[in-house]
């Protein structure tokens, strides 16, 4: 039981990261029906920028994060602007276009920061808490807290603000949204910007948990995407639940299968998604003939 709970707790903080990555995927997907395969690489760029300003420029961690958010937000806007001609036309082509962006971002990261990674010390020096014999790292709590706050803010934005409502409208029917005077392009750009900012948040937070390297984007992106699909693609609560599920699954796979954890994680994911292709909170859309 002790080991079980410890494994769950160990998975939760990475799970929160996956949830943030999944939220970014979902936000972009629900607004413009696009899967951004470069999302993982944006996470990586965010991690590098945050760690650079934190380590080299000796800025406070929070400030470094804000800079990372701003820079990746700009990257998101650029990606959206370049791919805009394809919006609502060819889904597969856009998907491949974002893979192209991912390739470029990774190469740029290697150019700027080198191919080897770096370790980032935890910004919270406090010792781990001891709760009924379970060790909980204070930084993990910080990660969980920030992830929860970000999800809440996102939900409030989507449901309570005019801009958020406009984005929901675009998601449901972009033509009808245009007809009532919503600027679809701008709405999509904002979705992309927020998606990228969420990626940077995940990247900045994951720095002290993992090793920051140019190739981290691939794994984080794929697992975040898997989380989004598992929860139900496009659904905000789905992204959170899916992220935590993948994190815990990962933690168990590492505990029991060591090196083969990825193999196990992806096999389990494939089986789950075969059983329920729409995920936990997914909605079935009816084929219209």
């Amino acid at each position, binding site marked *: 039981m002790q080991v079980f709970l410890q494994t769950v707790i160990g998975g939760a903080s990475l799970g929160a990261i996956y949830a943030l990555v999944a939220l970014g995927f979902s936000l972009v997907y629900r607004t413009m029906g696009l899967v951004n395969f470069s999302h993982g690489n944006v996470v990586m760029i965010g991690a590098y920028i945050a760690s650079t300003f934190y380590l080299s420029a000796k800025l406070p961690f929070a400030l470094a994060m804000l800079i990372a958010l701003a820079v990746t937000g700009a990257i998101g806007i650029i990606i959206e602007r370049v791919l805009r001609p394809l919006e609502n036309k060819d*889904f597969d082509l856009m998907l491949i276009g974002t893979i192209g962006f991912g*390739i*470029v971002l990774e*190469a740029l990261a290697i150019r700027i920061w080198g191919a080897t990674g770096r370790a980032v010390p935890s910004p919270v020096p406090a010792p781990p808490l001891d709760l009924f014999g379970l060790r909980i790292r204070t930084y993990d709590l910080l990660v969980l807290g920030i992830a929860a706050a970000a999800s809440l803010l996102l939900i409030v934005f989507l449901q309570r603000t005019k801009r958020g409502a406009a984005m929901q409208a675009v998601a449901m029917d972009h033509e009808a949204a245009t007809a009532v005077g919503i600027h679809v392009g701008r709405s999509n750009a904002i979705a992309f910007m927020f998606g990228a900012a969420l990626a940077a948040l995940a990247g900045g937070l994951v720095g002290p948990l993992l090793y920051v390297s140019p190739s981290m984007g691939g794994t984080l992106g794929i697992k975040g*995407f898997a989380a989004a*699909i598992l929860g139900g693609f496009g659904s905000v609560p789905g992204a959170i639940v899916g992220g935590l599920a993948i994190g815990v699954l990962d933690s168990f796979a590492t505990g029991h299968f060591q090196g083969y954890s990825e193999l196990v994680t*992806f096999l389990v994911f494939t089986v789950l998604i075969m059983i329920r292709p729409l995920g936990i909170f997914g909605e079935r859309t009816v084929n219209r*003939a």
Partner: protein
Amino acid sequence: MRYRIGGLAALAMAAWYLPYQLDSYLIHVANVIILFALLAIGLGLTMGVAGQINLAQVAFFGVAAYATAILTTRAGLGFWTAGLVSLLIAMAIGLLVGTPALRMQSHYLGIVTLGLALAFTNWVTNSQIAGGAEGITAIPAPAFPGVDLSNEYFFYYLELIVFALTMAFALFVVRTPLGRRMRAMRDDSLAAGAVGVEVPMLRMTAFLLGSIYGGIAGVLYAGLIRYVAPETFSIANMFLLLAMVIIGGRQSLVGCVVGAIVLMLLREALIDYPTYAQVAYGSVVVLIVVFAPAGLAGIPRQAVRLARRLGLGPAGAARTPRLGPFQPYPSAGAAEAVDAEKPMLELDGITMNFRGLIALRDVSMTVDPGEIRGIVGPNGSGKTTLFNVVSGLYRPSAGRVTLSGVTVTAARPYRLAQAGVARTFQNLRLFPALTVRENVLVALDRTRVWSSWRYAVWQLGVWRHERTLRDEADEVLARFGLSDFADVTPGALPYGTQRRVEIARAMARRPRLLLLDEPAAGLNGEEVRQLSEIVRSIRASGVTVVVIEHNMALVMSLCDRVTVFASGQIIADGAPTEVARAPQVIEAYLGDSAMSEDVPQTATAEGTR
């Protein structure tokens, strides 16, 4: 044609004499390029031709390479035996990776295949038997009597021959029934199912084809490099492969090969600056996707189109293509008329429930053989839902569908198509990237997907089958007056002509029951008259027709019986004149009398037109 053969001969000569110009390093590069070209063909078949996003092609490659390595070094098998077994293993893995395609498509499939590819690299980096991160060295060179294949120059010729054969095979597949069906499925899997294409089987076939090419490349890789390690089969190389296919043009196999050659040469030229090479090919992928979606292979056509727009190049064809008259079917004799004992179509208590929204409520009706049945009703009354249930797109929540006495409730669309149900769609679902002739050809082909085994052993049979199909297609096109449009894609045709193409496609299946969903929508008066002539002739040939239509004049003159729907229920059924007088019909169409002053005058005109 002569130019093409000449060009091909020149290309073959160049490839044959190429090694004389290359030093020992460059011949190695050439050998690796051919392997990537093989991989690109496989990915082009799965992704470009069949439309199945496959990000595990590099894993098929790896599975075969590793299997060859393990079988030769650990199990002591000879290279060729090991190679053959490895190819079979790769094919099995291909089928396994393809199974998710039965349940999901597009980005879902992308992430699942990518995850499985990652699982593969994860396995080889950790597994003892695969040599871990160091990989496996000292794979024996393939033995071949009289030729030393450890010499890269000789290996080049082995690869060249394999490449020529497999490329020819891939082109053959694309141009014959199997490839055409895959392209149809890529363009519109729903419509493909409705014309009898076994979509699930075909998706698996697409992955199988991809894994065959990946497997062949993997075996050759093991024989060429004689060393395997995990990083060769990494996700980075998967994306490189994807870039090759996109840049070259995924729907053209020649384009895929050109893309592979171009990118590999680029990588070679920038070998000292790998990150710049990566930036370059990433940016090219983005640019291609935005500006030339058909890739390098599509650029000539784009250039021609541009030239034409600027007024350059040859003027249009001398004779404008014209829609010919419909030539009626020979009417079936009494003997050929279907067994009149059993109703052609019988619906018994069909209910269709979409999460609480009841689109059809306990609908029962029978359609007799040789009848033309009209189905009318206000928008949203469940007419198209009914068609979707009958043609297998929806599985009804309750009730039974029988076809000439055989229960077919919730059968897959392709099964129903094989059982003799054909349909058209309200919003037209032609295969946009196929020509009109190919649209008809897909429907004409009544063979099953499993009969594709003939591609492996009896290509001549496939070719003969293809020739018969083409003759039949010309017949169908001539009958519907579409011969002039045989070689254009449907998107370029006027709307009315597209509607006729769809009917021709449905009739190419030689159905027993034809479902027409608003065939007159958007047609002008003359076209409606032609339509009614076509439908009558179709009935006279022994086919039962059910038609959903809003054009009341057409319904009244054409149909033997009319069934009226409102809010998912049948409110009237009978001869057209009776039904038009029934008070409940008038109410459903025009609202009840209390509401009537709110109904604008035009609605009345619409109803009785």
